[in-house]
C-alpha cells in the first residue's frame, strides 16, 4: 500500500514539475506550446544516457537534461518569435510530429521504439537514492525548488515582462522590452525544467521509450495546466492530481467495463476541457477574466 502511494506520489511530483514548466509557457508567457512532451523526452533521453554511460547521479543527469532541452528549445523559440496565436500552435504541433519521428528513428541515442533499458538506480553525490521513499523526497525537493523559483521569478521583473508581453506584445515593445530575448529566455527556461522532469522520469521508470513523449502526452500535460488553472502556482498541481487520480477513481465505478476505462477516462477529460472553456476558461484555480 505504502509502495503504491509512493509510486503515485512520485509520478504526481514528476508531472507536477512538468505541468509547472508548461504553465510558465502557457500561463505566464502566453506561448501555447503543444510540443511540451518533446522537451520532457529530450530530458529523459539525456538523463538516461548520462546515467547509463557516466554516473547515475541525479543532479548531473538533471543538469544535462536541462541543458539539452534548454538548448533545443530554440526549435520552439524560433517560431514563437516569428508567429503568434493559431500559427504558433500549428507550428508546435508540427514540431511535436517531427520530433516523434526523430525519436523513433535515432536508434543510437533513443533506442527507437525499443527504448533505453536498464537505467541504473539513482544516486546523489554517491549516496544511493534508488529506494522509492528517498527518490520521492528528491523529486519533492526538486518540485519545491522549481515552484519556489517560478514564484520568485514571476513576482519579479522577469515575470512582469513576460506577462506584459502576454497581455500586449506591442505595448511591451513600446515600453522598451526586448521581446525576442525575453521570449527566448522563457521558452528556454520552461523547456529546461521540462527536461529536468524528464530526467527524473527516466530514473523513476528505469526505462524510457518514445511512447511516453507523444502528442497524447503533450495534450495530457496541457489539459492538466488548463483544467487546474493557468498562471497560478497551485493550478497545474491541482490539474495533475485530478488527472492522475481519475483512472484510479474510475476503476471503482463497477458499471464501466474494464476494457472501456481508458476511453471513458479520455472522454471525461475531453468533456472537462470543453466545459471549463465554456464556463470557466481560467481553470479551477484561476481568476476570472474580469468584468469586461
Amino acid at each position, binding site marked *: 500500500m505504502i509502495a503504491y502511494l509512493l509510486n503515485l506520489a512520485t509520478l504526481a511530483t514528476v508531472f507536477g514539475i512538468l505541468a509547472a514548466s508548461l504553465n510558465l509557457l*502557457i500561463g505566464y508567457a502566453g506561448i*501555447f506550446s503543444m510540443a511540451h512532451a518533446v522537451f520532457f523526452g529530450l530530458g529523459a533521453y539525456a538523463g538516461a544516457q548520462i546515467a547509463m554511460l557516466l554516473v547515475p547521479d541525479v543532479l548531473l543527469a538533471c543538469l544535462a537534461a536541462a541543458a539539452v532541452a534548454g538548448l533545443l528549445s530554440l526549435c520552439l523559440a*524560433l*517560431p514563437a518569435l*516569428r*508567429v*503568434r*496565436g*493559431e*500559427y504558433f*500552435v*500549428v*507550428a508546435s*504541433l*508540427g*514540431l511535436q*510530429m*517531427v520530433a*516523434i*519521428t*526523430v525519436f*523513433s*528513428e535515432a536508434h543510437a541515442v533513443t533506442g527507437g521504439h525499443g527504448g533505453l533499458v536498464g537505467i541504473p538506480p539513482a544516486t546523489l553525490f554517491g549516496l544511493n537514492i534508488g529506494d522509492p521513499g528517498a527518490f520521492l523526497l528528491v523529486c519533492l525537493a526538486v518540485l519545491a525548488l522549481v515552484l519556489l523559483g517560478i514564484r520568485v521569478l514571476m513576482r519579479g521583473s522577469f515575470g512582469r515582462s513576460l506577462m506584459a508581453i502576454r497581455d500586449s506584445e506591442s505595448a511591451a515593445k513600446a515600453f522598451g522590452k526586448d521581446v525576442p530575448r525575453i521570449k527566448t529566455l522563457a521558452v528556454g527556461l520552461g523547456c529546461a525544467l521540462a527536461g529536468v522532469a524528464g530526467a527524473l522520469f527516466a530514473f523513476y521508470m528505469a526505462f524510457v521509450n518514445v511512447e511516453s513523449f507523444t*502528442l497524447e502526452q503533450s*495534450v495530457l500535460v*496541457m489539459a492538466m495546466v*488548463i483544467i487546474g488553472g493557468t498562471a497560478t502556482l497551485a493550478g497545474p498541481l491541482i490539474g495533475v492530481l485530478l488527472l492522475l487520480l481519475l483512472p484510479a477513481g474510475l476503476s471503482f465505478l463497477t458499471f464501466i467495463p474494464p476494457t*472501456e476505462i*481508458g*476511453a*471513458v*477516462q*479520455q*472522454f471525461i*477529460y*475531453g*468533456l*472537462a*476541457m*470543453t*466545459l471549463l*472553456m*465554456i464556463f470557466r*476558461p481560467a481553470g479551477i484555480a484561476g481568476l476570472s*477574466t474580469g468584468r*469586461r
Partner: protein
Amino acid sequence: MLILQLLVSGIQTGAIYALTAAGFALIFGATRIFHVAHGATFALAGYAFVGLVNGGFGWPLACLGALVLAVAFGLAMDRFVYRPIQRHEGSFFTVFVAAFGVTIMVQSLIEIGFGRSFAAVSTPLTRAHQLLPGLYVAEVFWVAVAAALVLFAAVTLFLERTRLGIGLRALSENPELLRAYGLSARRLSMIAFGLGSALAVPGAVLTAITTGLQPSISAQVMLVSLAASVVGGIGSLRGAALAGLLLGVVENLVVSVLDTQWSSAAGFVVLFAFILFRPSGLFGRAVAR
C-alpha cells in the same frame, strides 16, 4: 516509373487532404474560428459511413447518413461550443482547447462504439489495374480526383457568384457589407459550418474504403487540415486545397528517397519551413503581427 506511381498515390491522398482542408479554410475564412474539431467531423462521417454500410444499408444511404451527421456536428459545434465562448470574448486558445476537448470526446466515443482497431469497407473500386507497365491505378483514384475537382469548382462558384457566397466571404472582413445585402451574420456562420463540414465527407468516405479508419484519425486529419491551411495561407480556400494536394504528394514522393516513417514527418517539415520563412503561406495576406 516508381516516381510516377508515387505521384499517383500522392495525388489520391492529396485530393482527400485538399477537400478536407478546404472545408477547414472555408470555416476559418468566414468565421475566424480555428475549428480544430474538423478532424472529429471527418472521423464521425467516416465511421457513420462504415457503420451504415456494415449495417446493411446501401452506399447512397450511407453517404447521406455521413453527410447528415457531419453537418449536424459542425452546426452543433458552432451553436453549443463556439458561440458561448465568443459571447464572453474568449481568446483563440480558449476556442482551441474547447474544440480539442470535443475531438478527444469524439475519439473516445468512437473507441467505445467501434473498438480501437481499423474500420474499413471493402470494395473492388480500390483494386488497382495496370495502366502502363509498372503503373497501377485504381478506379478510386479517378473518383477522388473527380470529386475534388467538381466539389472545389462548385464551392468556388458558390462563393463568387451567389449572394450568400459573397456574404460568406465578407463575413469576417466587412460586416457592414452584410447589412447592405440584408444577410444575418449568425445565419452565414451556420452556412459556413454546414458547408465546411460537408466538405469533409467525401474524404472520410474515400479513406474508409482505401486505407481504413481508426479512432485516432480525427487527430491526424486535424493536423493535416491545420498544416494545409497554414501552408496555403490561413483563410484562403484555394491555398488550403493546393497545400493539401502538395502535402499528399510530398508525403508519398519522399518515400522514394527516405524510409516510410519519414513520410508524415516530411509534410510537417514543409509546414515548419513555411511558418519560419513564409508565414503568410502560398496565397495568404501578410500575417498580422
